[in-house]
């Protein structure tokens, strides 16, 4: 009997994009369900009663929540092709460490760039640039974080690229100027069809953030 795979998602979510890429890499057929986060579906509330957030992967009726947990799950279930995590425990720990670092830093810092001004915004900008530089350093001379091919950390990071244009415009800076190697890496990722078809356009994200600012009453 065929697997039933549903992804509860929200189009601008970097966390949702991670899951889209992983499912595509593994060649998994799934149903994409767009959630309205101001009017969450019964299915979402049932499948993720704890956090009430997307993404949620529903596999044969059973939910998996939290994007990095979902990536691990996808890797373990569809293990016959495209391993996302390396097999060596130390390399796995490194990939997990940096994905955890991204989750601890990027979302909140990025959010500060479009919700704050003045000193607070400048501080967030500086910290975000420093964090991006650290990740750039971690890449080194490799084509991808996964080595020759896309891996767990590439998939965890690349969706944030779709928010760079918004961050740069609101923060008045250029990520390419600060981290050219990182942008070169994103361009390599975008050449992979499974990545480019899973990511949304930066201009659309920017328009979405403008709308969100208006709705939240932020200047």
């Amino acid at each position, binding site marked *: 009997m065929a697997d039933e795979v549903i992804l509860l998602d929200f189009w601008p979510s970097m966390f949702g994009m991670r899951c889209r890429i992983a499912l595509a890499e593994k060649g998994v057929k799934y149903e994409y369900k767009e959630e309205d986060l101001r009017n969450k579906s019964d299915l979402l509330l049932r499948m993720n009663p704890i956090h009430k957030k997307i993404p949620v992967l529903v596999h044969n009726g059973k939910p998996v929540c939290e994007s990095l*947990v979902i990536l691990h799950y996808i890797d373990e279930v569809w293990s016959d092709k495209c391993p996302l995590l390396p097999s060596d425990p130390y390399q796995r720990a490194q990939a997990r*460490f940096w994905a955890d670092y991204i989750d601890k830093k990027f979302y909140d810092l990025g959010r500060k760039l479009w919700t704050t001004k003045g000193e607070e915004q400048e501080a967030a900008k500086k910290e975000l640039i420093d964090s991006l530089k650290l990740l750039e350093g971690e890449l080194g001379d490799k084509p991808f974080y996964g080595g020759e091919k896309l891996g767990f950390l590439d998939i965890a990071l690349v969706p944030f690229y779709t928010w760079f244009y918004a961050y740069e415009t609101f923060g008045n800076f250029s990520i390419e100027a600060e981290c050219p190697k990182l942008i070169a890496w994103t361009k390599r990722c975008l050449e992979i069809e499974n990545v480019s078809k899973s990511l949304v356009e930066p201009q659309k994200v920017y328009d979405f953030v403008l709308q969100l600012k208006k709705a939240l009453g932020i200047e």
Partner: protein
Amino acid sequence: MAKEVILLDFWPSLFGMRTRIALREKGVEFDTREEDLSNKSPLLLKMNPIHKKIPILIHGGKPICESLIIVQYIDETWGHESSLLPSDPYEHAHARFWADYVDKKLYPALRTLRYSTGEAQEAAKKEYIECLKVLEGELGDKTYFGGERFEYVDVSLIPFYSWLYGLEALANLSIKEECPKFVAWAERCMQRESVAKSLPDQYKLYEFHLERKKKLQTQ
């Protein structure tokens, strides 16, 4: 020849306790280096330049940071006959989700509870109990979160039991009354040598906290 295992630790740390338990569950021989967090060693700063925090596991000279990542590394490297994580991908994802819940929800509530007073403390108390009740619901009638087996979620949560006395003294919060199932589960865990050896004396922990609070207030 077996590679050297060193744990950079700090005895009151809940995160350090997790790693001690995991190493002991697997019967791994390790050296503990106690860190003075007001005067971090060059080794700590070299091994964790990003976060500059403990615990850090150093295996054959290579560092692994972040307690849950360390526990996963320990599980993947040693004692494959006695896994801390379930082999079934769905159960595995479930375990990851709940350990993440402990970090995202329970720990911040504890931190606020420890340092706040008045209304803020009352709110934190409520939040802490709610989180424990959710965890109690997840435990259900099982012996451990892993069923009959002491596993990943048990390891990630049991250190919080070391605050049983502290919360009563500090915030007039009787966890025994509010969450009896949690206490019953914790007492079962404490029967395990790996846990009993890894958790500090509760009175010592509370005294240490009082001293630290005093120091912070006079700074």
